[in-house]
């Protein structure tokens, strides 16, 4: 029996192995992944993002536990940062998911971002497909503790939950584009703090209601560590799931997002393959040298190198 078949039979060990192989860029693993794709459409993929320490893991732990208790299958992909110095990582989101761990019913996978920009790792998409094929109806992806531009999770999830705390800053922060914009559900966690109600009001005023859909982004106050507000949040998540199923919008938006994520990976792959050849290319080396010696500005250099590569690609086609 191959790995894909074993995953479809619900074997967690095979699922874990397949995810590891995808992380390593194993081409055989990609062939197994293709076999799983038809079985991955029934899952609601929920991305959870927000700054470090906002309570993302604790929130996911609570939601996962409630869903497990209802009898649903739950998966979690929890991403933490890779050290730029050692390329190692300490993955510790699981520590906050103790209750669901003890219940023993969820499939949780910790991943390092492997220096990938945007708050998620390339293999996260594959991991979601594998866990979905295990038969999990709900999968949470936890992004790296996010800064203002870590928005890649939007392309991996059907629904994005943005987690803020009462210490989000001031109104000016909310006027900027960023995490608030990608949230389909917005949470103010640590609702027991004195300023929580004010934060809820301010954030509610600035939530971006997306023109293109009829989904209205709710803003909720929760206290993840005590479980307060979790029930309301679960009801909202289920309403969102129904909304996505209703007019086939969910499926279309997922297809579109997959292509955008693919293009982002392609951009990096093409770059890393091409850049390796630069030292051997006399033309490009000369341009780089001219920038080093102040004979050329960096913008012209970028334009010239891009032209140089474009010409080679086009001539290859003729």
């Amino acid at each position, binding site marked *: 029996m191959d790995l894909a078949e074993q995953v479809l039979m619900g074997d967690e060990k095979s699922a874990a192995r397949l995810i590891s192989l995808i992380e390593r860029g194993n081409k055989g693993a990609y062939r197994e992944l293709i076999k799983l794709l038809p079985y991955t459409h029934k899952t609601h993929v929920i991305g959870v993002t927000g700054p470090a320490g906002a309570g993302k893991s604790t929130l996911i732990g609570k939601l996962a536990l409630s869903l497990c208790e209802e009898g649903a299958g739950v998966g979690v992909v929890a991403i933490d940062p890779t050290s730029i110095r050692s390329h190692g990582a300490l993955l510790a989101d699981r520590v906050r998911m103790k209750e669901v*761990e003890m219940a023993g019913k969820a499939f949780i996978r910790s991943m390092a971002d492997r220096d990938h920009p945007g708050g998620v790792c390339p293999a996260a998409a594959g991991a979601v497909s594998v866990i979905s094929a295990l038969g999990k109806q709900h999968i949470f992806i936890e992004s790296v503790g996010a800064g203002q531009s870590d928005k890649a999770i939007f392309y991996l999830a059907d629904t994005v939950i943005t987690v803020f705390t009462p210490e989000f800053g001031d109104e000016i922060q909310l006027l900027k584009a960023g995490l608030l914009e990608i949230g389909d559900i917005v949470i103010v966690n640590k609702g027991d703090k004195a300023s929580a109600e004010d934060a809820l009001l301010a954030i509610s005023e600035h939530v971006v209601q997306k023109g293109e859909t009829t989904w209205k982004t709710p803003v909720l106050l929760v206290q993840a560590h005590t479980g307060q507000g979790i029930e309301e949040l679960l009801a909202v998540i289920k309403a969102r799931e129904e909304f996505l199923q209703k007019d086939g919008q969910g499926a279309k938006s997922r297809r579109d997002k997959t292509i955008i994520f693919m293009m982002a990976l392609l951009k990096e792959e093409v770059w890393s393959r091409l850049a390796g050849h630069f030292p051997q290319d006399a033309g490009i080396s000369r341009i780089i040298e001219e920038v080093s010696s102040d004979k050329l500005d960096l913008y012209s250099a970028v334009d010239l190198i891009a032209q140089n590569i474009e010409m080679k690609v086009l001539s290859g086609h003729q």
Partner: protein
Amino acid sequence: MGRNNPIRVLMGKPGLDGHDVGAKVVSMALRDAGMEVIYSGLHSTVDEIVQMAVQEGVDVIGLSILSNAHLPIAKKIISKLKEKGLSDVPVVMGGVIPKGDISLLKEYGIAEVCPFSTPLNKVVEAVSKVAQSKG
């Protein structure tokens, strides 16, 4: 092993003692040596640790034990790993472990033992070595 294929280690803290400074210090040392370390958190049961090892697809399991329960825990984890088809995942044990127990732990199937006061670089070496032997 290498940049695209770092060693994945589960750092488990089984049992009732609440002292995880050692587990954290070793986790940081392994991280700084380029490994991906998944930390289980305090008071994990052997069943939970084995479940984590299954889902995380780790190359090595490290256990930090200061409660003097290393012998029964070693016996239990080796048999649970076997039950789950993970006999090929080596277990490295550290913490307060009397020198006299080391040979017994190895007899049980523990791959390496790094008792109290083992230098961090030796712990890193031990983990790398058993990860490589797993292949």
